[in-house]
Each structure stands twice: as C-alpha cells, then as structure tokens.
C-alpha cells in the first residue's frame, strides 16, 4: 500500500506541488521566526561574551526599580568604592562604569532611531571595557567625546565634528575626537553611545561626582572569579558600604546580559510565532481543501480499488501516507524557505542599522524539528476527514464525472453553527468582564463558527450572485455563480482563509482607531492649554535647559511634569512602579482632571494623588497613608490627598518637591504644557518653535498636533502588524489560486464541452474570474463581520486601560473589503488562463 501511495503522489506531480505549496507557505514563516531569533540570540551572546571577556567581577547597586513600562532603573554606587575594590588582594584593576541617559543631536538632527536607548558613558583606557578605539583618540577633556561606529556611520559624523549632547543636567557641545567599536561590532544593538572622560561623565552624565553605575573588576589571575567576588564582597562590607551593593562574577554579568536579551527576544519570538501560527492556521484551510478536492477527484479510482479488493482501511491509509509525504516534504521545504526569509529580514535590519551586523545564520535543529513536526501534524490533521471520506467510497460508486456537493447547507450545520455563535457570544460576554479564559474561549469559538457557518454564508451569496451576474455579464456570470454554489463548503473554506487575515486586520485597525479616539478624549478632558513640548522619544528626557528657556521666555502659562521610578504601596509592601511629579499650582491651572475626592490644590510635598483604580486596588481612601520610596533615599508615608478618574496618565501623582535629589532619584522632566492668552496663535507657535528648534530631540506640538503625533505612532505599530498579517493574506490568495486551479482541472471535460458548444475563451476566463470574485466577496463579508466582533471585543477588554472610546475604522474596513476582492481577481488570473486553454477534443473524447 505504501508503494502505491508513493506512486500516487508521484503520478500527480502537479497536484502534489500545489498541496505542498500550502504546507510550505504555512511552515516557512514559523521556521523563519526560529532561524531569525536564534541567529540574533547567538550573535548577541557572542558580543556579550567578548565584551566582558576581561571582566572577572562586577560591583553595582542591588537597588533596582522596574518601571511601569518594563524599564529598569538601578541606583548608583559611591565613587569611593573604587578605592576599596582596587585595594582587595587579587584585584589588578578596578574600572568605573557609567551608563546613563545622554542623547546626541548632530547637524540639527536627533541621533538614533526610534526609541532605542541613548547612552552616555565613560571612556577608560582598559581591556576591561568592551570599547576599542577604531579611529582617532580617546577623549581627554570636558569638551571631547567619542562615539560608537554604528552611530557615527548612521549620522554621518566625522572626527573633528561638533555634536550636541543632552543629559539630565542640560545640553552641551562636544568635539568628536574618536570612533569606537563595541567588542569588535559597530555598535551595541541599536543604542547610541557617547563616551566622555571620567570627570565629564560624572559631572555631566550622572550629575553627581560621587556616583557611579558600577565597577568593572579585573583580577590578577591569583583567584578564581568566585573567590575574587567573595573577597570583594567582604572588603565592601568591612568598608561599611551600603548593604544594597552587590558583587557579581564576570560569568554572571555575561549570563545576566545574555538572559535579559533572551527575555526580550523570547517576547519577540512569541510575538512573531503568533503570526506564524496564524499563517499556518490559514494554510491549514488550504491544505484541507486540497485534500478534499483530491479525494473527490479520486472517487472513481478509490471505488475501483475497493472493487478489486482493497479494504476501507487501506484506502484511508493510502490517503494518510500521501498526506504524510506531502506534510514532511512541504515542511522540509518550508524550513528552507524559512532560512531564506530569516536572512532576508536580517539583511533588511542590518541595512536599517538595527541588525547584529554580518553574522552567520544560526541553524538550530530544534527550530527545524518543531517546524517539521508542526507542519506534518497540521497536514495530517487536515487529511483526516478527506481520508475517512475516501475510505467510505462504496466499491460500486456510480462513476459520475463531477459531483455536485450540496453538503454544507445541511440543517445540522445550521443548528451547530447557531449554537457555536451563541456560545461564543456568551463566552465573550462573560469574558470581557475581566476573565481571560472565557474571552479566549469566546474568540476561539468565533473562529470555529466561521468554519461551521461559512458554507451557510457562501451558498446564499453564490445563489444570489448567479442571477445578478447573469443579468450583468451574461452566461459567464450565471455559470460563475453556479460554480461557486457547487460546493459551498469548498468556497467557504477558501473564503474563510481570506476572512481570517482580514478579520485580524480589521480587529487591529479597530484597536488603533479606538486608541486614537480615546487619547483625543483624554487630552480634551484633561488639558485646557494650547501646546505640549515633549521629547521625540517615547521615554525620552526634556533638556533642563529647554525647560528653563521656555519658562523664562514668558510666552504663556507653563507647566512641567516629570517622571520618576518609585516604589508605592501600603504596609511596607511597596511595589515597583513609575510616578509622575507635578507642581500642584500649575496642574490646577492647566489640568482638568476629574476628582472623586480631593484635588490638585490639596497636594503637598508629603501627599499623593491616586487614580481611582489604583486607590481601590491598594484599598485606600482620601486621608489614608500610602508608602512611597524613591531612589534618592526619600521614603514618605504619604497622605492620599486626591482620587481622580481621568485615564491616560500614570496611576500615581506626587509633588515635584517630594523628590529631594532628582539626579540621584533618576527623575527627569517628561513633558511641558503651555497655555497662551487667547489660545493657539501663529505668533505663539513661532515663539515656541524658535526655542525648541535649538533642541532637536524635542518638539512642540499643538493640541491637535499632539493627537496626530500619537496617531502616527500607533499607525507605525499597526503597519508592522499589517506586514506580519500580510503573510496570511498571501497564503489565502495562494489558496484561491490552488483551489481554482484544481477546480479547473476537475471540470476539464465540462470546460471542453462549453468550448465546443460555443463558449469563447474570454467567457471561460470571465467565468473563473467572477467565481473568484464571489469567493472574495464571501471572504470579505465573513472577514468584516468577524473583524468587527474582534475589534469590539478588544476595545471592551481594555476599556479600563485607556481604551474608553470604541471607534470602528470605517475607511480601513472599506479598504480591506476592496483589497480582498482585488486579491481574488488577481488570484484568478492563472487558473482562468488555464481554463481558457482547455483542450476541447480531449474533453469530449469518448472513453
């Protein structure tokens, strides 16, 4: 039987290729994700290992706060510890390590891409640091800087050029005297690095000559890394250093860096894998369809096999073996395709300056194995129903030529479909009230009902299309409608594959447009001023010089909010978070928060304002105490002096003067709000522009401009997701090609007959085209309904997280619908040409 299956697979090369294509497309994405992330991981692992090759121990503060956005802020250590560490026997060298925010602007432009880190550091002439001078010389005084080669290349910087650097202390000009590499690589993963001499980096980057981020320690070889770390720890304790100071071995610091990168990457892997799974899911529709069609086309052959004595199981098994061969072969080719996909993305990233540089692709067998198993399993699962159906073919099956399959509009299907939808609605209704399991179940059920109800959508659409198209385009329109109605199940599955991609696009677009509408509402409700000055970067820093200059210019009423990492909680259970620091007087004038109790006026340096949700989760009310700890050592038992319902800001607001030492607390100015007499005007805009122009890392935006900018950020994110979803749309389009191609093959006799009795090639082409368009319309219909449901669910789920407004993007929905129909038309091109070329004589030859 196996031999027979093999023979069968081989004898139908065309169909084999089409089936395999669906598997290949489904698995290539998955394999590509593995190759891509494995390669990135491996290359950064190497970079970190090289970077800390000469580091045997690392000393730093263990006091670290994880902010609300996943950003870690670690406390500084005392610069005096350098001498303590250097004096430990076995230590050859103790090197100060500084890395704190420092953004460069060059030639009137901000340096660096997007939200990648901007780092200021200290140059040390030592093997212990990863930095090597590539060109020029080290910085020797307070007006010189060296930059990493990737940044210099991207910004077009040369030795001798002047660069402007902004830190928490202000903005200064430096001359570039050197270009450095990071452990031999151009740069460190997209971050920009500005390296100063030690004194300058202490004063200007850290803002406190007594503080360091850490100490890199090199041993003299007499002790192992572990022994050295222990010796240092003992010396630190003996010196009376702060308890929070910790010592890591060189291996540990490498592993920590590698792990934190891995963590970031695993998020990326999961994120990308989701889209790979979506692609495979869409692909499975196609695989199922191909096997179904293939089984239908083999009805006669299977009947013959049964007649000459093959058992039911043998026929079924032969189908399974074929599926196995196609699954394994397709997945293997998918792996190859994944390698191509990954190298393409890496080349693109490298060209854009985000990549790890020239690297060898990391071909991890695990990724390929997973791809192979998943691809083969999906193919086999898709083959189950068709294989069982083949087995059920009776030996004396009527040797009909083309079966009309009316399955798919049965009563049972209607009942099951209705139940599924009701269950889905019930689960979703239960789930949006904060129950993720029900929500997931509901969404899954929605997709199931797409599969179940699909034929019930396809059948009436095709039935209506037949007379309508008949009127509009004549006989070919009538036939297109009839062909689409021929097997509503097949049409529905092809359309369903398209609908999945479309519905996700619509769902995501709804999320985007609702987020935009929500931020508009929040801003309109909470801010009465006219302008906002903010850093270009999402988590960027406003230069204190800029703030001072705007405040001094007297253009209007100015109000600054700052941000600080903090621990907040009750009864000594403080949790890491991020707080906003305000000047209550300014807030009273420019902010119109909705308070259920208290208000801005009440806020003192020992008080706190809380968002309603936060207050209830902490279980506090007006007048209760909340513990707040900052990195500068401030600990306050703060009184709750106001509770607000306005969303879109952080949950905790404190008085700016609660922060005693902003540089130690690593607090900084986040945004400036300006209110001008008489509102927004040309002269006010020009006056503000004139100041902000000098600080390219910041921008001044009008009320509407702020919303537009927010919208464009969302659009950037949406475009990224659309690009990932494009793969599944592409697979769905390929599904249309494959299904129609097989249908044309299946109907070759009929097409020959049609040609014989006077159907022109053009009419044959047009019939296939219209059939595809009907499929596209069915797909669009299902996609729009499902997508609208998904969009609504997403928005409702995050209603309390700043998505207060549900705003379906009608334009996108219309565009997506048109796109699916256009795609269907394009997909019909090849099958339509093939159909028009049907051989009349071969079709009517009596056999």
């Amino acid at each position, binding site marked *: 039987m196996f031999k027979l299956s093999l023979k069968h697979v081989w004898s139908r090369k065309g169909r084999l290729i089409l089936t395999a294509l669906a598997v290949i497309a489904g698995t290539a994405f998955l394999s590509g994700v593995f190759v891509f992330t494995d390669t990135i991981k491996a290359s950064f692992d190497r970079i970190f290992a090289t970077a800390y090759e000469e580091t045997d121990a690392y000393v730093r503060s263990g006091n670290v706060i994880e902010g609300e956005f996943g950003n870690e802020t670690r406390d500084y250590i005392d610069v005096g510890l350098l001498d303590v560490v250097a004096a430990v026997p076995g230590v050859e060298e103790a090197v100060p390590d500084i890395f704190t925010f420092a953004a460069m602007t060059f030639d009137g432009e901000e340096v660096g891409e997007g939200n990648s880190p901007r780092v200021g550091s200290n140059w040390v002439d030592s093997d212990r640091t990863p930095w090597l001078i590539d060109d020029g010389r080290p910085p020797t005084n307070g007006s010189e800087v060296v930059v990493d080669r990737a940044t210099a290349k991207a910004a077009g910087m040369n030795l001798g050029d002047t660069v402007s650097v902004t830190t928490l202390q202000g903005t200064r000009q430096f001359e570039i005297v050197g270009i450095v590499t990071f452990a031999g690589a151009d740069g460190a993963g997209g971050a920009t690095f500005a390296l100063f001499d030690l004194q300058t980096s202490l004063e200007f980057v850290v803002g406190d000559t007594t503080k360091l981020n850490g100490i890199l320690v090199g041993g003299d070889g007499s002790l192992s890394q572990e022994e050295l770390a222990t010796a240092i720890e003992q010396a630190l304790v003996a010196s009376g250093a702060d308890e929070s100071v910790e010592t890591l071995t060189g291996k540990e610091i490498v592993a920590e860096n590698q792990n934190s990168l891995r963590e970031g990457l695993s998020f990326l892997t999961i994120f990308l894998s989701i889209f790979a799974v979506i692609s495979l899911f869409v692909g499975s529709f196609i695989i199922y369809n191909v096997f179904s069609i293939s089984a239908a086309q083999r009805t006669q052959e299977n009947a013959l096999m049964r007649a000459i004595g093959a058992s039911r199981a043998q026929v079924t098994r032969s189908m399974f073996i074929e599926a196995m061969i196609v699954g394994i072969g397709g997945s293997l080719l998918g792996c190859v395709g994944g390698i191509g996909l990954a190298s393409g993305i890496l080349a693109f990233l490298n060209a854009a300056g985000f990549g790890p540089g020239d690297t060898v692709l990391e071909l991890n067998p695990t990724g390929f194995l997973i791809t192979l198993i998943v691809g083969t399993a999906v193919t086999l699962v898709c083959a189950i129903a068709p294989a069982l159906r083949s087995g059920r073919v009776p030996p004396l099956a009527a040797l009909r030529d083309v079966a009309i399959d009316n399955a798919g509009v049965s009563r049972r299907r209607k009942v099951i479909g209705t139940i599924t939808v009701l269950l889905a609605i019930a689960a979703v209704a239960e789930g949006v009230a904060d129950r993720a399991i029900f929500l997931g179940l509901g969404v899954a059920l929605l997709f199931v009902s797409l599969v179940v109800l699909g034929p019930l959508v396809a059948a009436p659409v095709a039935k209506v299309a037949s007379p309508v198209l008949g009127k509009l385009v004549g006989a070919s329109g009538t036939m297109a409608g009839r062909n689409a109605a021929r097997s509503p199940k097949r049409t529905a599955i092809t359309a369903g594959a398209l609908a999945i991609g479309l519905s996700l696009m619509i769902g995501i677009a709804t999320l985007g447009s609702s987020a935009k509408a929500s931020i508009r509402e929040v801003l309109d409700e909470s801010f009465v001023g006219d302008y906002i000055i903010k850093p270009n970067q999402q988590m960027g820093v406003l230069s204190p010089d800029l703030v001072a200059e705007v405040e001094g210019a007297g253009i209007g009423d100015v109000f600054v909010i700052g941000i600080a990492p903090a621990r907040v909680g009750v009864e000594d259970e403080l949790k890491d978070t991020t707080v906003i620091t305000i000047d209550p007087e300014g807030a009273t004038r420019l902010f119109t928060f909705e308070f259920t109790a208290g208000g801005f006026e009440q806020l003192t340096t020992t008080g706190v304002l809380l968002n309603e949700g936060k207050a209830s989760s902490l279980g506090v009310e007006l007048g209760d105490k909340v513990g707040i700890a900052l990195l500068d050592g401030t600990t306050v038992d703060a009184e709750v002096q106001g509770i607000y319902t306005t969303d879109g800001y952080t949950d905790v607001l404190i008085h700016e003067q609660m922060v005693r030492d902003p540089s130690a607390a690593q607090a900084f100015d986040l945004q400036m709000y300006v209110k001008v007499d008489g509102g927004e005007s040309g002269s006010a805009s020009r006056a503000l522009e004139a100041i902000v122009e000098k600080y390219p890392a910041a921008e001044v935006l009008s009320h509407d401009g702020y919303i537009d900018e927010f919208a464009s950020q969302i659009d950037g994110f949406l475009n990224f997701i659309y690009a990932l979803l494009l793969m599944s749309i592409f697979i769905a389009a390929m599904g249309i090609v494959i299904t129609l191609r097989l249908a044309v093959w299946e109907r070759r006799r009929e097409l020959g*007959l049609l040609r014989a009795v006077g159907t022109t090639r053009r009419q044959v082409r047009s019939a296939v085209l219209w059939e595809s368009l009907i499929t596209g319309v069915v797909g669009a219909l299902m996609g729009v309904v499902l997508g609208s449901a998904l969009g609504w669910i997403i928005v409702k789920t995050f209603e309390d997280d700043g998505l207060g407004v549900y705003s379906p993007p009608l334009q996108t929905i219309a565009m997506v619908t048109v796109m699916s129909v256009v795609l269907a038309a394009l997909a019909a091109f090849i099958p339509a040409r093939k159909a028009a070329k049907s051989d009349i004589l071969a079709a009517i030859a009596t056999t």
Partner: protein
Amino acid sequence: MTNTTLTTAAGAIDAVKIYGGGDNEVRALDGVTVGFEQGRFTAIMGPSGSGKSTLMHCLAGLDSLTAGSVHIGSVELSTLKDRELTELRRTAVGFIFQAYNLVPTLNALENITLPLLLGGSKGDQEWIDQVIDTVGLRDRLKHRPSELSGGQQQRVAVARALANRPTIIFADEPTGNLDSRTGVEILDFMRRAVRELGQTIVMVTHDPNAASYADRVIFLADGRIVDEMSDPTAERVLDRMKRFGD
C-alpha cells in the same frame, strides 16, 4: 460523389489530417471530399481508426486539417481565428456527444438554451417551445442533469443542438451509452428533427441499427470514403460493414 453545391449545409474537399511525424505518422484523413445536403440525416460509419471521428471534428471546427478545406454553409473554416470558430460553433453548429453532454450546474432549460445564453440572445421562443415539446421535456425543465436519466440527458442534448436552429448538427455516437430502447427514442427524435423541423444532421456511429435511421450512410476506411448507401436498412449496413473485416 455528391457535388458541393449551395444546397449543402457543410462539406469537405480533399481533407487531409496527419497526426505525428516521421515513422509515427498517422494519416487519419487521406483526401476526403464529401458534402452534406440540407434537410438530410447522414450517418458516417467505419471501423475503429477509420477516421470518422476525426472527419467530424474537422467538419465541426473542433480540429484543424493538415491540408484541404472544410466549410459550413458558405464559410470556409480554415480562414477563421479561434474567436470566429467559436462563434460559428455557437451559431451555426449543434453538437450531441456520447456522454458529458450537459453542464452539471445548469438545469435542463439552461442547458438547452446555453448557446443562446452564451450569445446573449433570447432566441426564438416559439421554436424553443416546439423543440422542447418535440423531445418531451416540458415537465423536466427545472431539473439538474444529475436528476435526469441517461435518456433524458441525451434528449436535453438533442434539444440543445436544435435550440439555435443551426446550419448543421453533429452527433458523435449519441446512443453509445444508452440501452437500446432509449437509444431508439433518441434516434427517433433526431429523425423527426430532420423530417419535421427541417434540420441537417451528421451522425458518427458504428451501430448499423442507428445508421438505419439515416437517409444516407457514408463508409470510411483508413481515412478514405470507400462507399455510400441511400435509404439504408440495418441488414444492408451490417452486410457492408462485415466486408471491412475481409
């Protein structure tokens, strides 16, 4: 041999059809000249491989000649492009095949009027009614082919061939898949179409009984016309056929 005059519905002159080349060369038609008069029912007979199907395909514009010419009405087929040939088949030719005659997605009425639908015309309603009544399908018009018996399907095919009043109808073993009683029914319809409706039919068959319904039988062997017979009976045709075996 019959002269190809204005009264012929279709005909071939020195028709040659060669398949393959070199040693594999097959002369399916080897200089056939024949004419089919209007309003007559002609049968083409011959043993397997005699070229009878090839002759029909070439006469109907489904296949092209290697040399010689064929015409339908006054139109010379070799000068026509695919588009024009298609239109000719739609307007001037009717077909009845042995099997796979009908489009499975269309009902009986739609199959009958298919050539008219394709041309975008309503056709002559009175004529179509007459055809439908002649083949006795009035109560089966809304049925799909899969819901019709083999004989009913062939009657639909006959009706379709007649629907646009073609210059000539070609039938390729129209009763080959039917039992003898149903076959007789179909042949009877075809004869009535010629006698009562004035149609012209050319039928390829190897069944002497079927041939006996024709007004005239042409015998083909090895791509040539070897004999012809007027007002045939089954016995005479069978006798003639037996001689091919010698």
